[in-house]
């Protein structure tokens, strides 16, 4: 968490100026008195008070929420019933959007949520020293998408087992590929790895080879094969 020192004539003045300058609300920061200060005697030996201020995650959570609410308020179809819920765990801030007409905020394959999430993460890392991640979900989109990906992975695995040939999936986001790998790991007879360069990186499911480590991932940004060139140009 961010920590900084503020001095003023008295501890109360220091606390007030911190609140005023940063717009902190109750419970969004803590402070420790480093030096209570001294008035001295007839101005001789007078000393300023100083406090160490620690910004709490609650402040960042509110900031992220306000950022997202403002961005969405520019929408042509400004959602009237938008509910933005935000909470945090470790260095992650979870934002949950709910309301009518939010479908367009998801975008094709979650493209728009990803964009908003990326920008909100940059926004929060501008105002904090510690690295934080913002994760956004709209309705139950991510849960449904996760189930869909698991189902695709299981179906493709079955095809691989039946035909003995490997299968390529469509390009996916990193978190989606992870779901595929996890699903494939639990199925015997198949193994998976990722191939290609972002944002066209995709998963290949193949028959399990004996004597090989079950889960392997090709190095990121490794060899570009012909296909990647083609998809990047397209």
């Amino acid at each position, binding site marked *: 968490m961010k920590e900084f020192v503020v001095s003023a004539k008295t501890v109360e003045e220091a606390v007030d100026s911190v609140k005023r300058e940063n717009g902190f609300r109750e419970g969004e920061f803590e402070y420790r008195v480093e030096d209570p200060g001294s008035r001295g005697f007839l101005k001789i030996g007078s000393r300023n008070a100083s406090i160490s201020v620690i910004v709490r995650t609650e402040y960042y959570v509110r900031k992220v929420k306000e950022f997202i609410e403002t961005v969405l308020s520019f929408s042509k179809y400004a959602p009237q019933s938008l509910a933005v819920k935000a909470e945090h765990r470790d260095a992650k801030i979870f934002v949950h959007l709910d309301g009518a007409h939010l479908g367009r905020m998801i*975008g094709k394959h979650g493209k728009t949520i990803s964009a908003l999430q990326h*920008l909100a993460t*940059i926004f929060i890392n*501008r105002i904090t020293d510690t690295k934080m991640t913002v994760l956004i979900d709209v309705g139950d989109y991510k849960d449904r998408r996760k189930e869909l990906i698991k189902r695709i992975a299981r179906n493709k695995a079955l095809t691989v087992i039946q035909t003995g040939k490997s299968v390529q999936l469509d390009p996916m986001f990193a978190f989606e590929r992870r779901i595929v790998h996890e699903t494939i790991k639990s199925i015997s007879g198949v193994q998976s790895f990722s191939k290609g360069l972002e944002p066209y990186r995709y998963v290949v499911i193949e028959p399990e080879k004996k004597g090989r480590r079950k889960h392997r991932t090709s190095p990121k940004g490794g060899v570009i094969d012909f296909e990647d060139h083609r998809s990047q140009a397209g």
Partner: protein
Amino acid sequence: MMKDALEFIIKGIVKHPEDVRVSRSDEKTPDSPPSELYDLRLHVEDVGQVIGKDGRTIKSINILLNALAGQKEEKFILRVQR
């Protein structure tokens, strides 16, 4: 107004928000219907941040802008200058 949205988003992610200037350009784009062209003037230090690795950030801004404007296809062109 999409210009305000653009300005708000960019000011939120740069080190020098006071140096951000967003303007709509009259220049015609070859695509039809013509895209809306915006010029972004930024502090030198912020150019990289706004574009992002592999253009990811500027692309995210564009995607978001289109969603806010309710467009199906991308209709904005963002030109970054220092």
